[in-house]
C-alpha cells in the first residue's frame, strides 16, 4: 500500500466505487441524480461516463422504489449500491428497508441474502433547507438484519466501503456530508479493506473516554485538545461501525479511564448514546466513576440554519460535559 495520494472523503468513496465496479461486474450504482449529475454531492462523479447507464442508474424520484427494486436486483444477481440523496429522505423507503432488506435472509432461512449497500449522507453543518441535516441511525440500529457503518475520514471511508461491498449482508453506509471535502488525507491508491465492526482509538488518554463517530470525531478531538490544556488526557474513540458496536474497544477504554461521554448529533432520547451508556453500565458498572454522559442534539427537530449552531454538539459543549464528568 506504499502508493498513496491526498484525497477527501468524497474522493475516497468515489475511488472505492470505481475500484469495486471494476472488480465486480454485478455491482451497480443507483439513485436520484447519481448518473449524469454525479450525485448532488458529486460522490458518484465519473461513474456514469465510465460504466454507462446500465450500471449507473438514474432512477425516478421515489425512495421506496429505489430500495424495493434494488431488492429485486439483488435477488436477480446484482449488488446494488443505492444512494438516498439525504438520510432524511430514507423515510419513504423505511418499509422496504426495515420490513424487507433487513429480513429476507432470515425470512427465507438463508436462501435470499440481500447484498446491498445503501449510502446516505447524514448530519448537520451545511446550512440547508429543512430535512437535509438529520442523523437518523436510531431506527436502523434498532432493526436486526442491517449493519451500519459511518466513517469519519478518507482512509476509513474507502476501506470500509470496500469491505461493505464484499459483505453478504445489507449495509447502511452513513456519510458525514459536512466533511465530504473538509480535509484531505493520505489514502492508498490500491484496493484495501477496513474491517467492519472495529472501532478505532484515534487519540489515547487515561482520564476520560470520548466516544463518537462521523463528523463529530474531529470536534471531539478539538475538545480533547482543550481538555489537555486543562490537564486532562481524553481518549477518543471513533466507532466507525455502529452495528455491531465494538464493545471490546469501548470497555477496554472505559475500564482504563473510568469515565465516558458519548457525542452524537441525533437527539438524546434513544440516540446511540443511550445504547452505549446502557452497555457500559451493564458490563462495567464497577469501573465507572461517573455517569456516562450524553452530549447530543436536543430533543427537537433539526433547526433551520439560523439556529443550527445551538443544536449541534460543539467543542464547548463537549469540553463542558467532559469536565462535569471528570469532576463528578
Amino acid at each position: 500500500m506504499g502508493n498513496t495520494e491526498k484525497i477527501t472523503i468524497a474522493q475516497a468513496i468515489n475511488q472505492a466505487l470505481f475500484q469495486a465496479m471494476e472488480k465486480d461486474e454485478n455491482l451497480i450504482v443507483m439513485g436520484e441524480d447519481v448518473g449524469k449529475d454525479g450525485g448532488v454531492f458529486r460522490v458518484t462523479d465519473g461513474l456514469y461516463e465510465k460504466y454507462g447507464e446500465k450500471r449507473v442508474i438514474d432512477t425516478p424520484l421515489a425512495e421506496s422504489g429505489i430500495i424495493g427494486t434494488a431488492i429485486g436486483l439483488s435477488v436477480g444477481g446484482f449488488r446494488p449500491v443505492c444512494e438516498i440523496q439525504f438520510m432524511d429522505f430514507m423515510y419513504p423507503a423505511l418499509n422496504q428497508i426495515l420490513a424487507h432488506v433487513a429480513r429476507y435472509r432470515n425470512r427465507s432461512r438463508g436462501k435470499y441474502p440481500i447484498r446491498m449497500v445503501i449510502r446516505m449522507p447524514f448530519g448537520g453543518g451545511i446550512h440547508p433547507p429543512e430535512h437535509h441535516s438529520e442523523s437518523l441511525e436510531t431506527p436502523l440500529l434498532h432493526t436486526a438484519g442491517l449493519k451500519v457503518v459511518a466513517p469519519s475520514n478518507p482512509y476509513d471511508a474507502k476501506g470500509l466501503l470496500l469491505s461493505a461491498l464484499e459483505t453478504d449482508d445489507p449495509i447502511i453506509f452513513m456519510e458525514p456530508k459536512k466533511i465530504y471535502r473538509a480535509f484531505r488525507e493520505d489514502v492508498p491508491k490500491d484496493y484495501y479493506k477496513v474491517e467492519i465492526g472495529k472501532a478505532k482509538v484515534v487519540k489515547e488518554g487515561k482520564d476520560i473516554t470520548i466516544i463518537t463517530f462521523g463528523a463529530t470525531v474531529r470536534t471531539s478531538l478539538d475538545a480533547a485538545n482543550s481538555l489537555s490544556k486543562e490537564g486532562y488526557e481524553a481518549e477518543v474513540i471513533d466507532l466507525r461501525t455502529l452495528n455491531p458496536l465494538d464493545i471490546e474497544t469501548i470497555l477496554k477504554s472505559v475500564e482504563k479511564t473510568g469515565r465516558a461521554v458519548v457525542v452524537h448529533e441525533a437527539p438524546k432520547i434513544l440516540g446511540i448514546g443511550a445504547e452505549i451508556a446502557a452497555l457500559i453500565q451493564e458490563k462495567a458498572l464497577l469501573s465507572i466513576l461517573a455517569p456516562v454522559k450524553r452530549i447530543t442534539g436536543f430533543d427537537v427537530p433539526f433547526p433551520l440554519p439560523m439556529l443550527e449552531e445551538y443544536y449541534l454538539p460543539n467543542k464547548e459543549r463537549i469540553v463542558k460535559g467532559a469536565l462535569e464528568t471528570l469532576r463528578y
Partner: protein
Amino acid sequence: MARSKIFEGFVERLEIVDYEGRYDEKEIPKLSEDSLFKLYELMLKMRMFDQKALNLQRQGRISTYGSLKGQEACQSGLALNLKKGDFLAPSFREHGIMMAIGIPLHNIYASWKGDERGNLFSEGINCLPPSIPVGSQLLHATGIGMALKFKNKDEIAVGFGGDGATSEGDFHEALNFASVFGARTLFFIQNNQYAISLPFAKQTNARSIAQKALSYEMKSIQVDGNDVLAVYKASKEAIDYIRKESKPYLIECVTYRMENHTTSDDHTKYRSKEEIEFWLKRDPIERYKKFLTSKGILNEAKEKSLTSEIQKWIEEEVEILENMPKPKPTDIVDYVYSDLPWYLKEEREFLEKEEKNNG
C-alpha cells in the same frame, strides 16, 4: 389549435366461457386435451389443498390461514404459461401458483403453521417467500424483472397483488419503474372484490384496475378471473409479449374471495348472503367442469380417481409436515446475518440453554 387531444387510451376485457358454460368456439385457446385437463387438475388441487388447510386450522394444527378459494382459475390459468426459471414474488394468497411451480405442500402448510422453514424453497425454485406488507413485493418483482432484462435473460418475473394492494404507493412506484426500465415483469392483480372488508368500489373510484396501467403507457387487460381459459389466454399473450419485447404488462383478474379474509375474519359482518350466492354460481371450478364435460374430457369416473389421487397426495404432505422435527430456538438468531455479531452470540448461548432445559 387551442385544444388538442394529446392522449387516448382504452382497456379491454376478455371472457371466453361464461358461467353457464356457453362459449365462442373460435376464442377457445388451442390446447391439447391433456393441457385442458391439466388446468382442471390444477384447480382441483388448489381447492383441495385449501380445504385441508381450513380443516387443519380449525383443528389447531396450523395457525391463522388465508384461503384462496374462488381464485383457482386465476392461478391455474397463469401457471400453465410459466416456465422453469420464471420468478415469482407472491403475496399471501398465492398458495395455488406456488404449488403449481413445484413448491411442496408441506412447505406452504409449514409457513402457515408458523415455521420459517416453510419459506426455504429448494434450489431451482424461483420464488420469494410470501410478502405480508401489502403491495411491497411488487417492487421486488420489478427489480427482478429489471435484473432479467439487464442480464438479457429469457425469463420473466411475476408480481402478485390484490385489489387492495393497488392503493399502496408501492404499486405506483413498481409500475413506474417497470415501465421506465422495461422490466420483464408481469403484474398479476387478482381483484377479488375485497380488501378484508373494503369493497372494490371504495378502494378506488376507477372502474377497473387494468386502466391504471395507462399512467405508465403499459399494456394491460382485464380478464374474467373465474374463467380459466380466459386467464390462460390473456396470460399467454402477456407473457409472450414480455418475453419478446422486454416490457412489463398488467393483468387484472376479476374474481371473488369466496371465504373469509383469513381464519381470523368473519365476512358476514360486511357481505350479504345474496352477494355470496351470486358469486357461488360463478365458481370457477364448476364452470370449467361444465365446459370439460361438454367436451367429453371429464366424466365422473375420471373426476373420482383424480380426487382420490389428490387426496392421497395431500395426506402424505400433511404427514411430512407433522413429522418435521421442531425448529430449534437458536434458529431465531442463526439466519439474521451472514455471521453472528457478539450480542447475538450472547443471545444464542441463552437460547441454547433454553433448548436444553426444554428437553
